[in-house]
């Protein structure tokens, strides 16, 4: 789940967890309704919302003991500690933890009861690159075993490596829902040329049926499709005595697609 600040990501997550009083609509998990007063469906759900809630007077291990269900053995708790690489400080009081350590503990708390559905709000907050990678591995492993994850994040490059489906929300509305590949392929691929005579080149290319993207920045952008061949373009320009100085392929990534999407959303509103 992606969206700008204040779009309503945490609010949606809180509503799913029965923390929030929603005026209309219906939320079900696995067919069971969830509301403030009906929590039975949350038995198999783990979550970390906003920032991790930590008791300063308990150690990390005591937190995990406190929140683990009766069926979870000490060994299983330690497995999570090892996976998150928290062993060196898990017995220390949580008030001595750094931001990243607290974040890891929060994630461990979300996973400790082996939930089938895990909700993580900005899970990469405060994590160092190594911890980030570890978390990714844990999430991928659990997902392979059948755990469903709902993750919100601003770090799109991280999300790209993790997700199957994407929901983009803005001002409480869904503006995109689908897989990542579709969002990316929606965006145009283009070839950017730098020539000795851009104006002349533009005319020639248009006359020969190439579609150009308007730009005054001293280069030419050609919309690429399956038929566009670089060899043809080079041939066409060199026969007209235009030198090609530089060629680049530009493929917009998730970030660009997303920013375009949100931009369009604003335009529509205006």
């Amino acid at each position, binding site marked *: 789940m992606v969206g700008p600040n204040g779009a309503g990501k945490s609010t949606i997550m809180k509503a799913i967890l029965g*923390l929030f009083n929603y005026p209309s609509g219906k939320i079900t998990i696995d067919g069971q309704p969830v509301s403030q007063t009906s*929590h039975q469906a949350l038995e198999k759900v783990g979550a970390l919302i906003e920032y991790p809630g930590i008791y300063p007077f308990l150690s990390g291990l*005591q937190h995990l003991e406190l929140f683990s269900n009766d069926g979870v053995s000490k060994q299983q708790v330690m497995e999570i500690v090892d996976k998150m690489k928290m062993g060196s400080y898990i017995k220390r009081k949580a008030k001595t933890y750094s931001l990243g350590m607290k974040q890891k503990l929060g994630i461990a708390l979300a996973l400790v009861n082996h939930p089938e559905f895990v909700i993580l709000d900005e899970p990469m907050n405060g994590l160092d690159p190594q911890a980030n990678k570890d978390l990714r591995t844990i999430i991928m492993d659990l997902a392979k075993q059948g755990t469903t994850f709902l993750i919100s994040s601003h770090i799109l490059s991280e999300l790209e490596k993790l997700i199957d489906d994407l929901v983009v929300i803005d001002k409480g509305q869904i503006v995109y829902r689908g897989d990542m590949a579709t969002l990316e392929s929606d965006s145009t691929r283009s070839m950017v040329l730098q020539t000795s005579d851009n104006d002349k080149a533009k005319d020639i290319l248009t006359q020969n049926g190439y579609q150009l993207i308007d730009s005054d920045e001293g280069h030419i952008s050609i919309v690429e499709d399956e038929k566009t061949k670089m060899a043809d373009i080079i041939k066409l320009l060199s026969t007209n005595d235009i030198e090609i100085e530089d060629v680049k392929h530009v493929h917009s990534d998730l970030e660009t697609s997303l920013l375009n999407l949100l931009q369009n959303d604003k335009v529509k509103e205006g």
Partner: protein
Amino acid sequence: MVTLVKQELFKLVHKKSTWITSVLMLVIMTIYAFIARNNANTFDPKAIYIGLFTGMTWVVFFMIAASSSIISMEFQYGTIKELLYRKYYRGEILVSKWITMFLYSVYFMLLAFVYALILKVTVLNSNFQLSENYGYKHSILTTTIYTSLAQFVSLWLILSLVLLLANLFKSSAAAISVGIIGYFAISIISSLLAIVIKKWTWLKWNPLNMMNYPNQVASPSLKHITLLSTNELLIGSLVYMAIFLGISYVVFKRRSV
């Protein structure tokens, strides 16, 4: 529910303040026992023993602090979300906290009572006998038990208010202040209260008047001032307790976090 109470107790026993306050209370009680023995002419050792060597007052203080923090700390530490999103009903979470506080208050009362007995037979052994008559027809020991039980009722009247305020304001500071002021208010404004009650009789049902219950158990003549019988005070206290806890329950169930 048993699991939830166990979890609350787990948090309670791992808090340092839980043990520091217990030790502090015992130390202060010991000091008072020695003061009572060495100044038997100025202080009445019997009266001091019946007041559990001021232990009861400390139980009230520490319980007010503990009750306000057991709810407000969850908001302060952000743990309220972790607490609430689980499979348990919200009401169960709140009630588990009440039960934990009840157990804690029983622990404190027993600790104060038993330690007062120990101080009596060690430090103050020769000063008086527990079987002596004290005041109205009862022995000193029986009087102490009755007074302590009555104070326990009063304690819970205050605690139910503290639990409500901590829940409303999500902050322990407000709840602690009101709790402590409420506890002392009765001795400060009792004379004023007596005048007001005499003028508008229906005001005898106000919660502050209910705080007179332990005093009236100790000296029944107080009924001419409270204008209520001892049993009416007891029932009144219980009704107010139920009202305060009831509002807490409704507020907690509806809150969005």
